[in-house]
């Protein structure tokens, strides 16, 4: 259950003579040096990741960090140079051609940054594509595509062509197309990056809504930290093809692994992201007092609102079973909100 997708020692090197380049990289050669000496580009460098089932796992990084390369290894649109990928106990890299096609049909589907809808097919045909490829009977795929068409809110558009729809609607089609195959894993490659901010937020909500119900294993790629924090239950930060931090969002903000990550998170609104449970002092032996009791999932901004309503200098925190699990003082609260006064160093 917990390690549904396991990636072990994954390397990807683009170029000729990758074997030689691989051993150089394993000896510790840097990306720049490798490019200069062998004319090979280091795409992924010793990736080790465990992705649990039923969660949204965000992989984040700037462009060129290898995130799109990484996600394409999961369905082998790109073949690795070295390493191991196991999904639900199946060694994906050992699949033969036929097995791979079947694996892509049944177990994972993908949503693309530029939608990648089929322009010559209607919306309904687009949504049915994954099912048509599997040669499922027309009756069933018509029914399923109708269901998903409604589910993403595009009823009545079945006979339109993709370019007659707005960007947001097109990506709804992309999402419906991916969901229609009932695959367990959903790969989303910067799925909302091409949309304007309002539509993007709307699509994020659509995804979160669907996920509450579907509990898919979603690997979501983005370069947008706000998006990562909003939808990610776990975030891996990628830099130059290596994972620099793999943690839950709260920990990434409170304990960035290095300067690169702290630089990444320096501009976010901490009070809207950090939750009460992340900064509280744990204690179960507090008796109930006449202070506000807040939910452990509450963000600091709301905690502050609760505190300012009263004359108290602290609040108690309860878990979802209404048990008191800790408290937050005003000082702790302010400490949590302010950005750590560490020097932001320039990374190379």
């Amino acid at each position: 259950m917990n390690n549904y997708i396991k990636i072990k020692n994954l390397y990807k090197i683009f170029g000729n003579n990758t074997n030689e380049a691989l051993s150089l990289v394993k000896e510790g050669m840097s990306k720049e040096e490798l490019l200069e000496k062998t004319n090979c580009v280091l795409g992924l460098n010793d990736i080790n990741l465990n992705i649990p089932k039923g969660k949204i796992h965000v992989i984040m990084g700037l462009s060129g960090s290898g995130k799109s390369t990484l996600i394409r290894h999961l369905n082998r649109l790109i073949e690795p140079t070295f390493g191991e990928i196991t999904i639900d106990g199946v060694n994906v890299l050992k699949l033969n051609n036929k097995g791979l096609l079947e694996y892509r049909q049944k177990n994972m589907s993908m949503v693309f940054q530029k939608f990648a809808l089929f322009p010559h097919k209607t919306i309904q045909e687009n949504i049915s594509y994954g099912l048509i490829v599997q040669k499922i009977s027309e009756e069933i795929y018509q029914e399923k595509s109708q269901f998903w068409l409604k589910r993403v809110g595009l009823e009545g558009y079945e006979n339109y062509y993709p370019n007659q729809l707005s960007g947001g609607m097109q990506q709804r089609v992309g999402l419906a197309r991916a969901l229609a195959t009932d695959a367990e894993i959903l790969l989303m490659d910067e799925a909302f990056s091409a949309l304007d901010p309002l539509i993007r937020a709307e699509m994020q909500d659509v995804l979160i809504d669907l996920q509450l119900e579907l509990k898919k294993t979603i690997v979501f790629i983005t370069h947008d930290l706000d998006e990562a924090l909003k939808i990610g239950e776990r975030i891996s930060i990628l830099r130059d093809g290596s994972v620099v931090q793999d943690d839950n969002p709260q920990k990434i903000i409170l304990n960035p692994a290095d300067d690169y990550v702290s630089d990444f998170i320096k501009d976010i609104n901490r009070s809207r992201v950090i939750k009460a449970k992340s900064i509280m002092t744990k204690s179960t032996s507090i008796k109930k007092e006449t202070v506000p009791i807040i939910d452990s999932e509450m963000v600091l901004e709301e905690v502050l609102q609760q505190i300012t309503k009263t004359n108290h200098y602290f609040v108690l925190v309860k878990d979802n079973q209404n048990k008191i699990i800790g408290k937050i003082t005003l000082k702790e609260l302010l400490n949590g909100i302010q950005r750590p006064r560490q020097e932001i160093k320039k990374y190379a």
Partner: protein
Amino acid sequence: MEWLTKFPEMDRNGLREFKKTVDNSFTSFSRNYGEGIESFFDPLLSFLVGFEKLFLNTPWPITIFTILSICWLASRSILIVSGTLLSFLLIGYFGMWEDTMSTLAIILVATLLCICIGIPIGIAMARSNKVQTLILPILDVMQTIPSFVYLIPVVMLLGIGKVPGLIAVCIYAIPPIVRLTNLGIRLVDKDILEAAESFGANYWQKLFGVQIPLALPTIFAGVNQTIMMALAMVVIASMIGVQGLGLPVLRAISNQYLALGLLNGLAIVVLAIIFDRVTQKIGERMQKYKSD
């Protein structure tokens, strides 16, 4: 210093021997295998003859009606259909009906042949860069070599007649469809192909479900060009025994009959315009999904 002013060429005897060897070996090749090759093309000949007979034996009103219906189905344009009607009436009135039917038959057969051979070659080229590098120079040769040069071996092998004419037309007319099929498939958006792949589509599902449909407008531009080039070859093909509008043109050139040449030449032009407009309309209609 003589080698500077006079190119150090092969000596005359050697050159004569070389040409003689090539000629003789080809002559003996055609003597030995000519008949075999000719019989290989027999089905093609009977197909072409059958087509020609069909065109010539059908009463002209039915032929015109059929042509107009095809034009309408393909183009949905009153202008094109009425233009076609007028053109064919004029062609008939000026006594060129039979020649026009023969030309139509050979153009259609040549085009069909080019499509059947050219599209698979284009697909193979799009699939592999090696095949592309191999075939591109061949296409260059086919398009640039003077037609008379390849007429020589064709006539030596197959004699004078319809089949060598058809082959000559096809050699000249096939490059555009091969090139544009290749181009059209290569231009299909990589993202869209990746999407098909990510859903587990196999090679044939990608080819027939995504690549060819999206390349179709480009492929059709190739068909259009192939037809135009086939029409352009009509006069040259008539030199080796192909019936049709080319023959009177040829006669007009050698006898300086201005009116005869002009009329038949214009008939070829009119056919070309009709073919062009109709096929272009089909191409446009294939891209219907692109408009809002």
